[in-house]
């Protein structure tokens, strides 16, 4: 217990001053060496198979490669695999790129791919495994170091989509490595565009460019992700120049960002649809009462006319313009325009309060009823405000609505147990196509088939189910597209769920940096580039 001698402290200060000066000297001419990004959510681990969580994947995208990559519009493009095809109904073959090197210099081969896929379901204590994307595979054949085949029990058209979520780790380094070894960097050896440098829990992740990367090399050599969850603090970090870019600037500051010449605001439609679930159960719905406050024996929400009336009562353009400050597009289906399975014929429901009243009267509720709307707090952009706006709009057609919101934890727990009558949720089609929301949200709840896992309203339509199950096994893209479109059309005609809008994802950057925005909401360092002024 002796105090640090002054000379050492002095030496340290000089060392730092020197390194700062040196840093400036090095970066000055290129001016595009270092990038600091403030992200909004906590990275919990560097192990790319431990926890399927957005902020973790966002970092893994830099360090690790996948067989299939997604472009900025969520369309599949070759990654480590140069091509893929079905050999028969139940076998997929992926051809691997030659000369892909891990950060330790060893070559990435089919062995590593097989190892990674086998590792996914075996990571201990995983709170959110990636196994949903590997479970279709019943056998792996390594034909040669650059050819790998996956056998499935049933036809599985989504294999390339699944492979766009599995990060490839090095068999040599990761064999037997626990998740801690990834966090410390020991096992965090990928083949991606950046190499892992440092992860400070709750604070930052530092990465450095992989100059041996097989594809286009990113413009910035050093990147630091700062974790700043607090919105005003993130904004202040940008305004003060401590970081070059932030994700999710607070909606309240959008006007300022748009008018300030020192900053650029970039936004793009997200794959996330914001929608409402109806209680489809034939029961006295827990949060619907008559105008006299007494419970209704019959659940009015099981009547499609009532659901349609509610949908017509909602002024979606007003929500997009005013609540969302223009950062949303009204929606009448599950996936946005550029995603596979989008149905161009389905438009957002037009605002029609008179029509809504008429339908309510037809259904036997000329004076409406009382309803409590539930919503999450702080999970989606302006979630609480959207729920409040919907409540006011419903009041205009006679449905007296109260609003209750709660943080996502307790909220989703209750919603998944059918404790609500009418509640809001969001869904990101992370596989980039329409089967993702269809199978999880609209297929009939069926544990053994793994369908309808998030069908919290318990919507059920056998024709929709049939189409979804067929589509999930239809290897022909064109046929599958038609089936997905048709299933969506039927489910939307029933208003199995009620879409509100697709939210936009936003990024704010300094003027001298530009970002190519993405549908999948990722904030990827390699999509930033310096801008000459």
């Amino acid at each position, binding site marked *: 217990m002796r105090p640090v001698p002054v000379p050492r402290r002095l030496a340290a200060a000089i060392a730092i001053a020197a390194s700062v000066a040196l840093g400036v000297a090095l970066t000055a001419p290129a001016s595009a060496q270092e990038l600091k990004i403030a992200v909004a959510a906590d990275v919990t681990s560097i192990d790319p198979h431990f926890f399927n969580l957005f902020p973790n994947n966002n970092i893994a995208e830099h360090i690790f490669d996948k067989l299939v990559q997604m472009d900025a519009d969520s369309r599949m493009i070759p990654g480590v695999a140069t091509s893929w095809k079905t050999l028969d109904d139940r076998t997929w073959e992926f051809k691997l790129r030659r000369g892909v090197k891990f950060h330790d210099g060893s070559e990435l081969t089919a062995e590593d791919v097989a190892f990674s896929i086998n590792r996914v379901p075996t990571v201990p204590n995983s709170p959110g495994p990636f196994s949903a994307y590997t479970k279709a595979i019943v056998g792996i054949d390594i034909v040669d170091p650059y050819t790998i085949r996956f056998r499935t029990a049933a036809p599985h058209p989504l294999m390339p989509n699944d492979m766009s979520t599995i990060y490839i780790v090095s068999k040599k380094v990761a064999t037997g490595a626990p998740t801690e070894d990834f966090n410390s960097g020991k096992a965090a050896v990928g083949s991606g565009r950046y190499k892992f440098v440092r992860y400070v829990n709750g604070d930052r992740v530092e990465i450095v460019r992989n100059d041996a990367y097989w594809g286009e090399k990113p413009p910035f050599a050093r990147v630091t992700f700062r974790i700043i969850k607090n919105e005003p603090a993130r904004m202040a970090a940008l305004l003060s120049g401590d970081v070059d870019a932030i994700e999710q600037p607070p909606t309240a500051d959008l006007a300022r960002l748009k008018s300030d010449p020192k900053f650029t605001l970039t936004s793009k439609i997200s794959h996330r649809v914001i929608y409402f679930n109806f209680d489809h159960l034939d029961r006295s719905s827990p949060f619907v009462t008559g105008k006299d406050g007494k419970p209704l024996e019959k659940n009015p929400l099981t009547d499609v006319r009532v659901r349609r009336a509610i949908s017509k009562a909602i002024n979606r353009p007003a929500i997009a313009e005013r609540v969302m400050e223009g950062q949303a597009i009204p929606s009448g289906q599950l996936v946005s325009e550029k995603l596979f399975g989008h149905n161009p014929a389905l438009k957002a429901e037009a605002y029609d309060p008179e029509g809504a009243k008429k339908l309510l009267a037809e259904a036997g509720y000329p004076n409406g009823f009382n309803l409590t709307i539930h919503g999450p707090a702080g999970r989606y952009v302006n979630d609480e405000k959207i729920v409040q706006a919907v409540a006011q709009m419903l009041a205009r057609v006679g449905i007296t609505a109260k609003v209750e919101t709660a943080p996502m934890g*307790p909220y989703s727990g209750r919603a998944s147990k059918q404790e609500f009558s009418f509640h809001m949720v969001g869904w990101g089609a992370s596989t980039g196509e329409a089967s993702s929301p269809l199978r999880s949200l609209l297929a009939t709840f069926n544990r053994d088939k793994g369908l309808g896992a998030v069908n919290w309203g318990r919507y059920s339509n056998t024709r929709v189910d049939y189409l979804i199950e067929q589509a999930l096994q239809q290897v022909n893209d064109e046929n599958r597209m038609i089936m997905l479109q048709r299933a969506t059309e039927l489910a939307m005609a029933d208003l199995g769920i009620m879409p509100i809008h697709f939210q936009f994802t936003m990024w704010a950057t300094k003027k001298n940096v530009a970002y190519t925005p993405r549908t999948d909401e990722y904030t990827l360092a390699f999509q930033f580039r310096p801008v000459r002024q």
Partner: protein
Amino acid sequence: MQSVVVLFVMSLLVFVGVYAIGNPIDILINPQADQIDRERAIAALGLDKPLWEQYLVFLKGALTGDLGRSFVHATPALGLILTRMPATMELAIAAMLIAVVLGIPLGLWAGLKPNGVAGRTIMAGSILGFSLPTFWVGLMLIMVFSVMLGWLPSNGRGPTMLLFGLVPVSFLSWEGLSHLVLPATNLALFKLALLIRLTRAGTRESLLQDYVKFARAKGLSNARVIGVHVLRNIMIPIVTVIGLEFGSVIAFAIVTESVFAWPGMGKLLIDSINLLDRPVIVAYLLVIVTLFIVINLVVDVLYSALDPRVRLAEAKG
């Protein structure tokens, strides 16, 4: 013995409380997962067992010093908290230093010259320190000193160095120090106001006491009267408050930590609550309870040093 009971009751309360909020798997698992994946993940974390059984498993581990593993970080909860502790301790100590170094002299001044302009200004300032919400002051500090003036960094902890080759601290370098100034000031404000008011009240009271009058009558210098007779006597309540407040500074640095993105344990707690990461929440609260117990002990020891009438082994006397 008492402390062990407190720790036990605390762990039980938190355990049941967090259990009541909801099932962490609901928010942790990727929504694309199907029902069977979900059940498997629940079983992997031991959440399928009845609550009492989960608690017994925890208790068994706790007795051997294992407070469980974080659900989301896959590392031992206690280790996770300990790695984040130096940041919070550094912030809390810096804040307390600011509060003490400024608070006691200012309070003394205000107590000695209660009607002077300076005395009144100090008191008015302390009211502000009391009543302005911490997060707002924090944002204002950032707006003024980082955004407008650009003097200090707006968030985060600067580079750290090992103190005694063991504890990572940031105050040993200029850059680290510059990161520390704003959050420490922010955290100190409330305590500063408290200390000013406490010192002032104590000073005014003791100035009227006989021993002060007597000391003056003896012809002692003003400095000696204030430095020895006044200050020493008002120190006892101040030390108590500093002790208690130090605990609360550590426990409630949460607001400052999130406004300044300071990677301490308060921020860890908030993140863990959001993800219902129960092992970390329970471990955190147990650590804080232990900390309070230790601080109270230290305060008791200091008492006896300041006040010869207080003896630690009072039973004997």
